[in-house]
């Protein structure tokens, strides 16, 4: 038998914020998209005829930049919880700039690939690297849009300790995109 308290908790409507929950479900669908790609990579690799090459150096640095942006994103969330508006604006701006920097570095990473004679069109081992980084880049652009909306809201003082939903969604998405890249990067390192 459940106690009354447990029953109450079980029946309390909306124990989760629906918007944040929607965010998580959206993340699940992105996870499935990339799970399919990385599985395809493994299945295809097992069939042989696979060109081996080293990942561009810039990918190591860009990974560091993206992790740094996650730290500043977390700082922004903490600042928002404490109503420290200047710190919030500063760290959310830093996150945005680091995100842009990451994209630029990825682009030059592609140039390095081209210099290594690894092209988008060619052996699938190279094509997959472009697809992984390219689609992650597209998702990162969507993350930058979310970040920009939060940035504007922060400068208009719409984010504070009592209105945290937006910054929570933004930071969850951003950390996810960060983790996604780290996963893809490690996956490529291990399998290359």
């Amino acid at each position, binding site marked *: 038998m459940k106690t*009354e308290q447990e*029953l*109450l908790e*079980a*029946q*309390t*409507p*909306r*124990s*989760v914020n*629906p*918007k944040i*929950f*929607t*965010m998580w*479900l*959206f993340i*699940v*669908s*992105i996870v*499935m*998209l*990339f*799970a*399919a*790609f990385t*599985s*395809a990579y493994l*299945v*295809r690799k097992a*069939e042989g*005829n*696979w060109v081996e090459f080293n990942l561009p150096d810039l990918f190591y640095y860009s990974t560091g930049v993206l992790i740094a942006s996650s730290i500043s994103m977390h700082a922004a969330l903490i600042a928002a919880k404490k109503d420290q508006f200047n710190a919030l604006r500063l760290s959310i701006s830093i996150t945005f700039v680091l995100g842009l920097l990451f994209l630029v570095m990825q682009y030059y990473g592609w140039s390095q690939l081209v210099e290594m004679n690894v092209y*988008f*069109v*060619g*052996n*699938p081992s190279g*094509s997959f690297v472009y*697809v992984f980084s390219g*689609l992650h880049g597209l998702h990162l652009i*969507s*993350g930058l*849009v*979310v970040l920009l*909306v939060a940035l504007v809201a922060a400068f208009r003082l719409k984010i504070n300790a009592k209105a945290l*939903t*937006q910054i929570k*969604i933004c930071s969850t*998405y951003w950390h996810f995109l960060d983790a996604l890249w780290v996963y893809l990067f490690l996956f490529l390192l291990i399998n290359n």
Partner: protein
Amino acid sequence: MSTAISHAEEVHTHAHDHEHEHHEPNFIQKYIFSEDHKTIAKQYLIMGILWAFIGGSLSIMFRLQLGFPEMQLEWLRPILGSWIDESGKIDKEFYLALVTMHGTIMVFFVLTAGLSGTFSNFLIPLQIGARDMASGFINMLSFWFFFLSSAIMFSSLFIETGPASGGWVIYPPLSALPQAMPGSGLGMTLWLTSMAFFIVSSLMGGINYICTIINLRTRGMTFTKMPLTIWSFFFTAILGLLSFPVLLSAALLLIFDRSFGTSFYLSEIYIQGQALPNVGGSAILYQHLFWFLGHPEVYIVLLPALGMTSEIIATNARKPIFGYRAMIGSLMGITVLAFIVWAHHMFVTGMNPFLGSVFMFLTLIIAVPSAVKAFNYITTLWKGNLIFTPAMLFSIGLVSLFISGGVTGIILGNSALDINLHDTYFVVAHFHLVMGSASFFGLMAGVYHWFPKMFGRMMNKTLGYIHFWATFVGVYAVFFPMHYTGIAGFPRRYYSFTALGNDGQNAFTDLNQFITVAAILTFSSQAIFFFNFVYSIFKGKKATENPWNSNTLEWTTPVDPGHGNWPGEIPAVYRWPYDYSKPGAESDFIPQHIPFSATPESNLPEENEEIAKEKAIESLLAAQNESYNR
């Protein structure tokens, strides 16, 4: 998408202002860009019905070719133009396009969007006691993405090179090389574009369904008090959320191969003596990715129909559903198994035979939860006080089709037997009975059953009976003979099949003629439904609040539920939805919102204990209301 979320936030708070101020939405807000789940459901339903007639008429065209290969089809020229060749027959390439588009339209646009889109949208908020979906804005976007996808797919029917023709599974290399056949050109591009939008639409819808079911249930509506319809929509949405992104990734790689020259699926191909530059791709890779969606898709189509059937059968048998928890368990079992059986579609593609036996084993396990469902339907009907409404007849029809089509699934699931039967009409018969017709019957049952709540009027019963019997007999007449031609080796998707005939004649013309005539009659009888549907929207008998004496929450709303569904407070839920013919009770049904304290004459001992918790459930009202104003 993400901006949509923050946008939805604003819209959401907006919607609540509406409830307080209550100003009427204008025509566009009310009927076109509506955020009301009931309107969106009707939009999906009407689109689904239109698509069903288009998809059905395509099948009649290729049935004419199969049944009457010598027939003059000049009279189709006004519609098909040069797709009727000079000798007055259907063009051979266009025949493939007809088969492809029939499959695509029926699987995705009718039985996914038309079925799940309609009833998940309509029933989830009404049956769990919510004012609307978690995000009305995303819900609206979901429909309009579907509309955009429909428009693109529809337009592809009219281009000069014809729509996609590689089969609804669009296997590369046929689909990856624009020069492979006319339909692989622009038609294939439009197909892929359309499906990309369709996937976006499905994901938006599915995310909303899951979020609503988990977060917006009314007070007292625990998971084990949810109607089986909601459980089935829940698992359907999970299946879609996990499998549609995989189809998107398969399609993206295909697009790269088609348009940018990559070699994910292409390898060492010669066209007209010329070697293509693509090296190192794998066509089987595509099949793995496709069927990882493709198989769950079967259950995305079927589960909502099964859920609605549970509800309709219990209501009209005036009996509690037999094995409520076993039904949930079997839905769950089917959902899990759906993801680990995909390769049974690939037994003859050169896959490792050992892998084949693993997938065969897993496939056959699906018979267990399926049989649980079939037995539970039959035991619910057993000695019930059956009321044969058209919805009930279609539900019983579904049970029949689910069994007769499912049995052949056990045959096809065996890799050794499948090698012989693969791509024959036996397969066509199997999936048309178990997935196509069964889900279609579920769709029809749902329309007949919930029409009064959708449009405030009743559909004509007599026309419903005629429609049912014509369809039921017709479906068996069409698909049953296909088992025989299939076992004999008649392959699917063939324009004409002469290998088994005498002197180069078509084989099995007599059976094929029978099937074609039956198909034409069955298809024509759907006009009865169409007339009944349209006529009843405007001129049908006025419905009452609860015409079927049903227990679930949607029947506690007014005849025409307005925005927000309940004019007053949302009712609380105290009992499960299947208290039909309860011993000792005054009436033969006790709706979910009636507390046990009001029915001491029929309570079981353990239910008397529940009375103590009613206070706790009621005390949640303030929290529930507050959550809507958040």
